[in-house]
Structures are given as C-alpha cells and as structure tokens.
C-alpha cells in the first residue's frame, strides 16, 4: 500500500513537471510568440497622452499662449515651476503683465499633469520625450518659453 502511494505520487509529480515543461517548450520553439522589444535600436511608439516632460507650445511666429497668470505654479505640488513675470507696455500706453521666464525644474517634476490641467489658456502640454539623462544636473533646469517669443495676440 505504501509503495503504491509512493509510486503514484512520484508519477503525479513527474507528470506535473512535464506539463510545465511542455508549455515552456512551446514558447521556446515558436518564434512568433517572442515579445522582446529592442529598445535603444528601435524607439518605442508612445501614445500622444504619454507624460514625458512639460513643454510650452509655440507656433510658427514664435508666439505662445502663456499670459503669466501663475495658475500652473500654484497647481504644482513640488514647486517645479517658477514663473517670472514682467510688465509690457501696450500700444495704448498701459502696463500689462506678461511672462518673462518660465523656469521648469525637470528633476523635481513627477509628471502629474496638474499644471497642464490648471492652465486656462492651454499654453503648456506634455511631450513624449522620456530620455532625460544628462551629465550635469543644471541641464535639467529648463526655460520653456523660447527666446524672443511673445504672447499670441488675443490670448487673455
């Protein structure tokens, strides 16, 4: 009786192992099941909503939609954004608040999208670039409004 149990146990064990081996063998011999992606050689196709970094949208006239309202700075949980404003003189001779520098600390950003959500004019958005490594930490502090750019007419 003991021997019988023992043999059936061993047989069951061997069967279970073979069953698993059969499955791994199947994947080993079927090339079409391979799912490896060769990352540095072939860049992945990222969806358009992917959050890689915050960027400011500029059109062909080097104009953006940022009014310098600092809503994004207030929405950011980490102090990643610093808006430095200045006063422009409008043609009518009035003073108008405008953006001077949009400082973005990429090293602090958690890609939470709250700033993009908070912006009333849709001036900033998320870009797909995800390869952010640099040799110097200071390179991660970015100025998002391009040099010489100004706010698009009509954006309040």
């Amino acid at each position, binding site marked *: 009786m003991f021997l019988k149990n023992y043999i059936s146990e061993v047989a069951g064990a061997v069967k*279970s192992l073979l069953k698993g081996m059969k499955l791994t063998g199947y994947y080993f011999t079927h090339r079409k099941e391979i799912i490896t992606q060769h990352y540095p050689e072939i860049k992945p196709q990222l969806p358009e909503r992917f959050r890689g970094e915050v960027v400011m949208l500029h059109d062909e006239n080097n104009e953006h939609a940022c009014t310098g309202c600092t809503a994004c700075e207030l929405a950011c949980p980490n102090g990643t954004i610093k808006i430095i404003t200045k006063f422009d003189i409008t043609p009518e001779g009035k003073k108008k608040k405008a953006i001077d520098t949009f400082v973005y600390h990429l090293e602090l950003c958690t890609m939470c999208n709250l700033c993009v959500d908070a912006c009333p004019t849709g001036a900033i958005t998320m870009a797909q670039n995800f390869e952010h490594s640099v040799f110097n930490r200071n390179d991660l502090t970015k100025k998002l409004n391009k040099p010489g750019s100004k706010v698009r007419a009509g954006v309040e």
Partner: protein
Amino acid sequence: MYRTTDILEHKQSPSAGGVGEAEYMVINVGPQHPATHGVLHLVITLNGETIINVEPHLGYIHRSIEKMCESLTYRQFIYTTSRMDYLSSHINNHCCAMSVEKALQIEIPERAKYIRVILDELTRLASHQLWWGAMAMDIGAITPFFYAFREREMINDIMEETCGARLTMNYMVPGGVMFDLHPNFQKRVKEFIAFFKSKIDEYDEILTGNVIFQNRVKGIGMLSKEDAISYGCTGPTARASGVSCDVRKLYPYELYNNIEFDEIINTGCDSFARYQVRMQEMKQSLKIVEQLIDNIPEGDFQAKTKAVLKLPKGEFYTRVETARGEFGVYIVSEGATTPYRIKFRSPGFSNLSALNHMAKGNKIGDLVAIMGTIDLVIPDIDR
C-alpha cells in the same frame, strides 16, 4: 542592528524550544535584498535553520508622505498616494478622490464611475499578475515571471494610452477623472480580456500544479482566522484564512453594489490558500470588467468643481479595496484648503505584522515563500 535583549528573552522563554544558548543566530535580510521586493529590512533570529523570530525594521524609505500631505491642497495630495502602493496606484487615487467628494458632497457623473471601476479592476489584475510572477521567482521559478509580464504589459499599454502613465497615473481627480477615455480603450480592453482568458489556464499549468511549488507552499505559513482578525489583516491574506473582508462587498462604493462578482474566501489558512485566492480574484476582476466594458454610458467624465477646494470642518474616512486589502484615507479638516492631518491606512502594514506569526517555526527557506504570498509592497508599508 539587532538588540541583544531580544535574543536573551528568547533564550529564557520556554516556547523557544529549550535549546542551548549558543545555537541562536541573528541575521539581517535586507534592506537591499532581492527577495524582499524593495527595501524591507528583516532581522531574523534563527536556531539552526528554524525561524525563532522575525522582526521587520521600517524606515529605510520613509518619505513622510502623511506629513507632506498637510501642506498640499486637496487636488495635489492625491498624486502622493500613487507612490505608496505603486501597484494599486489607481485604487489609492480613487480612495482619495472619493473622500474629497464625500466631504464636499459632489455627485460624480455615471460615466466617471464606470471608468473608475474598470480601471480599478484592471489595476488589480495587473497587480496580481506581477505578484504571481514575482512570487514564482521567489520560489525559484524564473519562467512564470516573463509570462506574467507579457500580460501585464498589455494593461500597462492601455493605461499609458488613456492616462498618460504606466504606473503613477494620477488620473482620478475630485469630481471624476482627468481626461476622457481614449477612443481605442474599449477595443483594447476587449482584446486584452480575450487574450488573458486564453492564457490564465497556462498559469495553472505551469505553476499551480507543479509539484515543487505545491510542496513549497502547502501547509506553510499558517494564519488562523482569529489571528488574521487580531493582526488586522485584510485583503487576500485575510480572505485565505476565512475572514470575509472585501470592502467592495461589505461597504460597496461607486458601482460595486450593482455588479455581479463573488468574494473569494478560502479556509486553507496556508500559503497555498493565499495563492488560490489571488488566482481566483483575477477571474473575478475579469468578470467585472467584462460586465462594464460594453455599457459605459455617454456623458461627462468630470463633474464641475470649484477651482479651490475647501473641505468643511470635520473628519472624513473613506475606504476601498486595493489589490492587497483595505486602504483607507482619514482626513481631519479645519476648513482650510489643506488638510490639518491625513492618515493613510495601508493594507501592507497590517499584513506584514502577521509575518512573524506565520514564519515562526518554519525553515528559513520558507520565509521568502511566505513573504511572497502576503504580497508585500514596501513603499506601502513604509510611507
């Protein structure tokens, strides 16, 4: 980092087995040990190969999230909870958003509810898949890890397309969800369901029936029903000891009272029972997603909320069922824009506290298997 008094206590206690003094050995596992899935530090007292005591030391990745939340507004604090249990980040975010909505009495649109529940269940599936692969790897089987990640990758891709991130989504906002679903969402989820249904049997084939695996988990790490309750265990860890504790059933939130699904309860009390509970929960999650995916109503995905959220004075507690158990957010508000105090009740912490009880008397090789079945996520424990 061990305290000599601990060892002396054990030497004196009769329950230690009455062995000679010189035979105790104290070893450190972690904080950086591949088997602890993160930075858990365990101080283990051994008698030969038998575990006498396991003492978790926390604090290695403490980020003081609760304190940090006190200076964040009610929109901002949600993202920090993705950094706690990063495998259930959607569900954690959901709980926070829900507690703010409850306090402000915001009624969220029906469509947002559907989106939330579907994404919750997909998160649970992804979490259990990762657990399955990682647990098999702890025990020594490398191959299942790749199979698990193949399916998990599909969920991550769906998340990436709709939420913009793969792990720390921050997609739930007070009032609903951040953006509408991606147009491809339904199609891809259905593809995933069909694919996963054809593969879930492979999981059983390669691991569940395997004789080596069964010998490693059966009868190991016993946790009786009484102990599970007294340690405050929740989630699959407690349900495998016969405790009915599914928040989705007991305190239904969002749509869960209209959905047909079973609470999986097993009375095996051992590591294998915990394994089986999670395996069956995957099937239940699939069932929930299948029920909802075709009926997502049209409409808004976010309710209108004020730009600045101010919670009324008072205390608010909300709980949800994450992949690991009950997650709770307790907010004390003084009526300001930031909380006065926030406490997170994380499932991993209570589940870890039962580890000593489960591991005592087992061999050191089984410790990793036991830790695997309680599915520890260290940032969730040590926040």
